[in-house]
Structures are given as C-alpha cells and as structure tokens.
C-alpha cells in the first residue's frame, strides 16, 4: 500500500470518529433538550396561574377559581403512610436477603419475585389494590387503600437500593463487631444499618417520589377526580396531585390547560424538594 493511501485511510477513520462523536453527543442532548422544552412549556403556561389562592383553594368548574389544596393534602397523607410502610418492609426484606438468607428455595423465590415485580406495570398494581384492599378488605376508595397499593408498587425500588447499601458495608466492620462479642442481630442494628443508612434513605426518598407521581394505580382504586372535601381520616375518600392534574387536563375548556400546568409546577416542586432532601442527607452522612 502506498503511503498516500495510508494517510487517506487514517483521515477517513478519523473523520468517521469525529462524525460519530458528534452524533452520540447530539443523541445525549435529545433527552436534555426534551427536558428543557417540557419544563419551559409547563412553566410558561402555568406560572401566571400559580398564586396563594391556587395553593389554598379547591377545585371548581370555573378555571380561574381552581385550587389544589385538597389534592396537596391527599398526597401528603399518602406520603406519610407510604413512607414508613415501605421503609419497614423494604429494609427488613433487604436485611433478610443480605444478612440472613441462606441459598435456599425461599430466598431464591423472593429474589426472583422482586426482580419481576419491578417490571409489572403500575396499572396492574391498581387492579390488585382495587380487588384486595378496596373490595376484599372493605377499605373502600380510601387513603389507606391508596397508600397500601403504592407501598406494594414502590417496594421493589427500595429493596434493591437497600440491598446495595447493605452490601457496600465492609465485612471488616461486621467482623470487628463479632469480635467484641456482639451477636448477629446486634451487629445488624448497631453496625450495618447505621453505615448503610444514607444509601437506604436515598433509596426510600426516590421510591417515595415515584409513589407521589403515580397516577394510574390511584385512579384504578377509585380516587375521586373532583372533590372539595379535605380528608381527615385514613378511611376517607381523597384525591391526589396527579389525579387532580389528570382531571384538569381532561377538561375541554382550554383555560384548564393553565390550571393543569400550575398543578404540575406544584407537583414538580414537591418532587424536586424531596430529591434535594435526598442529596442533602447523602452529603451529610458522607461527611460524618
């Protein structure tokens, strides 16, 4: 091969490399641009409608008079119930799988179920909640039914995160604890859990923010779209932020688009502050 040929081929290969680098970078930016456009669009449509009256008002047939208060309270109720339930069940399962489980049929079956449950569509959890909690347990279309359904839905996310956090605790710390005469349970509670806590907290906040954004299962268990009632017990019917947004977005009057956008801004702010909290907790724990 002549030298000019070689140089030509090298140039072609280099050009191909820079072409694809640009293509790959551009592809990465598709997601970023979509995010920016989505946020800008909703911000522009909704910000003018977002004021104190909107936060403290109730839903109405007149677009200008709408408020998000009942939905906000409903979502807070859901969070307050879902958070401890997922935390207890999720962390217990993760401890069992990482610290105690022998490689037998039970633990293999649990692992298999967790990975498959993570892929079940959320609406199917809605059908489960509707049949078991709403009808079989006679809980009705209540906050409790909603929270239990959401707990089952996000449980796999927390379990996987907690498992990873527990696995990351060095074996030497456990051995040091055993060497001081602690038994297994003491080691788990006093050594493993404290050092896995930041990871577990991050996972539980992430799973909770998933729960707050879920719409389909909450609709399936019969959350009411248009309510002016503020729930004051676990067995009250309720509405939640995403359900309220869905009902506004389904209105034919175009002004409701702005109401829905304002609702979405509130939802995103709730989610964003939860994520900021997760990052804050993680940093604080790392500094310790």
């Amino acid at each position, binding site marked *: 091969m002549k030298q000019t040929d070689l140089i030509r081929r090298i140039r072609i*290969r*280099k050009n*191909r*490399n820079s072409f*694809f*680098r640009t293509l*790959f*970078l551009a592809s*990465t930016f*598709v*997601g*970023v641009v979509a*995010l920016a456009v*989505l946020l800008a*669009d*909703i911000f522009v*449509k909704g910000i003018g409608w977002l004021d104190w009256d909107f936060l403290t008002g109730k839903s109405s047939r007149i677009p200008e008079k709408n408020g998000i208060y009942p939905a906000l309270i409903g979502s807070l109720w859901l969070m307050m119930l879902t958070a401890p339930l997922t935390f207890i*069940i999720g962390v*217990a*399962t993760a401890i*069992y799988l990482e610290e*105690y*489980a022998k490689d037998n049929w*039970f*633990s293999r079956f*649990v692992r298999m*179920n967790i990975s*498959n*449950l993570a*892929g*079940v*569509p*959320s*609406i*199917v*959890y809605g*059908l*489960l909640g*509707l*049949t078991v909690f709403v*009808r079989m347990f006679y809980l009705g279309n209540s906050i409790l039914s909603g929270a239990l359904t959401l707990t*089952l839905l996000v*449980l796999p996310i927390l379990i996987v995160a907690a498992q990873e956090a527990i696995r990351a605790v060095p074996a030497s710390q456990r051995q040091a604890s055993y060497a001081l005469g602690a*038994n297994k*349970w*003491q080691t788990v509670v006093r050594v493993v859990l404290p050092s896995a806590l930041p990871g577990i907290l991050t996972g539980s906040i*992430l799973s909770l*923010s*998933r729960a707050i*954004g879920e*719409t*389909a299962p909450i609709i*399936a268990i019969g959350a009411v*779209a248009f309510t002016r009632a503020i729930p004051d017990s676990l067995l009250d019917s309720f509405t939640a932020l*995403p359900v309220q947004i*869905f009902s506004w*977005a389904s209105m034919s009057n175009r002004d409701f688009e702005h109401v829905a956008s304002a609702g*979405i801004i509130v*939802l995103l702010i709730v*989610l964003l502050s939860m994520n900021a909290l997760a990052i804050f907790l993680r940093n604080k724990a790392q500094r310790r």
Partner: protein
Amino acid sequence: MTVNGHRLELKKRKKLLSSDRIMPIVLAIFAGISILTMIGIVIILLTESAGFFRQVPLLDFLFGTKWTPLFAGSQQAFGVLPLVAGTLMITGIASLVALPIGLFSGIYLSEYAPAKVRAVLKPLLEILAGIPTIVYGFFALTFVTPLLQKLIPELSVFNALSAGLVVGIMIIPMISSLSEDAMSAVPRSIRDAAYALGATRFEVALKVVVPAALSGIVASFVLGLSRAIGETMIVAMASGGLANLTWNPLESMQTLTAYIVMVANGDTSHGSVEYYTIYAVGMVLFVMTLVMNLLAGYIKKKFREEYR
C-alpha cells in the same frame, strides 16, 4: 465474678441467642410480602377474569378484531386485538425513538464523555427519568400534538404518533443508563489493547465495547420496551379512547393500559361483564410484560461475557 453477676451474664446471653433465633423469622415474614404480592396479582387476575371468560369464549377474546365492550346489547364485541395493536404501535414508535438515542447516549457517556461533562449530563437524565408520566402525558397532548399538527395537518387531536414519541422520550434515560452500566463494566484492559493497535475511539466503541456489552445492551432494550408496553398515563391522555385496529399512527388508538384506566375512571357497575374486561385485559398486559422481563433476565445471564 459473684454468683449473681454470673447469672445476669447468662440471662443476657440467653437474650442474645433468642434475638438471633427470632429475628430471622420476623425478617423472613416481611420478605414474604414480595411473594404474596406476586401471588396476589396472579390470583386476582385469574379469578376475576374467569368471570369474564364464562361469558366470552377465550378464542373470541384473543383473536377478535373488534373491541366495543361498552356498547349496548348486540353492538358489544370483545376482541382484544385492537388494544394489542394499539399497544404494539405505541411501543414500536417509542422504540424507534428510544433505542438508537438511548444506546448512542449510553455510548457517549461511557466512552466519550469527559468526567466533568458526565457529572452534568447524568443527573439531568436522572431528572428526566424522575418526571411523573402524567406530566409527559400533558406535554404530549398540549405541546407535541399541536406542534406535529402544524407539520401534518391531518393528524387528529388524539393520535398514536405523539403518544409513541413521548413514551420514547420517557424511556431514553432508562435505556441510556442501563446500557451505559453494561458498557462501563467492560474492563479497561481490552479497550487499551484496541487503542494500542491504533483503533480510533469510535472503532473501540463499535468493535470492542458494544460487542462485549451486547447482552446488557439487549437486556436494556427489552426492559425499555416492557416499560413502554406498561406505560399508562401518556397513552391515556394523548392517544385517546378509541380501540382502533389500524396501521395509521395518525389516528387515535387505545392501548391495553389506557383501556383499564378509562373503565376504572368511569362508572361501570361492579359485577357486569364490562367490569370484568379490565381483568382480562390486565392479564394480557401482565403476561406480555412478564415475558419481556424474564427474557431480559435470560439474555443478561445466558449471553454475558465474563472477564476476569
């Protein structure tokens, strides 16, 4: 040590032993909740859709081409194919968007991106992944559809195209991060070997890293598709409520998920055959996604390249 102290010591040790005996059982019971959930899903889908299949023959359901369960009397038809077609259409459009873009951005993040750029881009993609689907649905209905209508005037307000595109955008972060994980797991040494032979970055990515991570990449594709099949709110909002067996993505098409939401959100009376349809449809949906997830796990395990 006094006798008394000794006794205390023994008591303490007994307590220690009992916590080690009881706690594994308590924890195992909590772990069992995952099993109960899965069994619960399977049982309710089977028993409740049994009520449906007592009235509608299984074959009519699986191969019928008309889905009009909410119509009156003789107009009722229970062929699930239009809903399956709607689901596959949305999934197909979504995968045209998400598979290449997700893979390419996975390659960029794993092979090209400098650490600083990565530190900015990854969190942004995570935010995109954390946006609730109701927000995407609203975006599809009020932004993407009007925009597309300017380009394609015959596009109807509810259509499979814009729902599919937005579902695609939704699953980009998932495919990108899973395939990036697979590629990052390829050991540095085999990349270095290719560089030492004079390969460009693109050649290393295409001929070394992607083949080595192929099982993980394909698994990420399958998981992404399964997510698209199960996606509910985007399609419920943007693709409309018309069960429509068509090849035309510009028309309204209903998916399995959107149908369930529509009936659950309406006022169908409990116990009627219309009511039981949601369980039969849920069953189809559950089987489709379960098969995809098992397939992804199988691909990942079976075709993994092991490096030591």
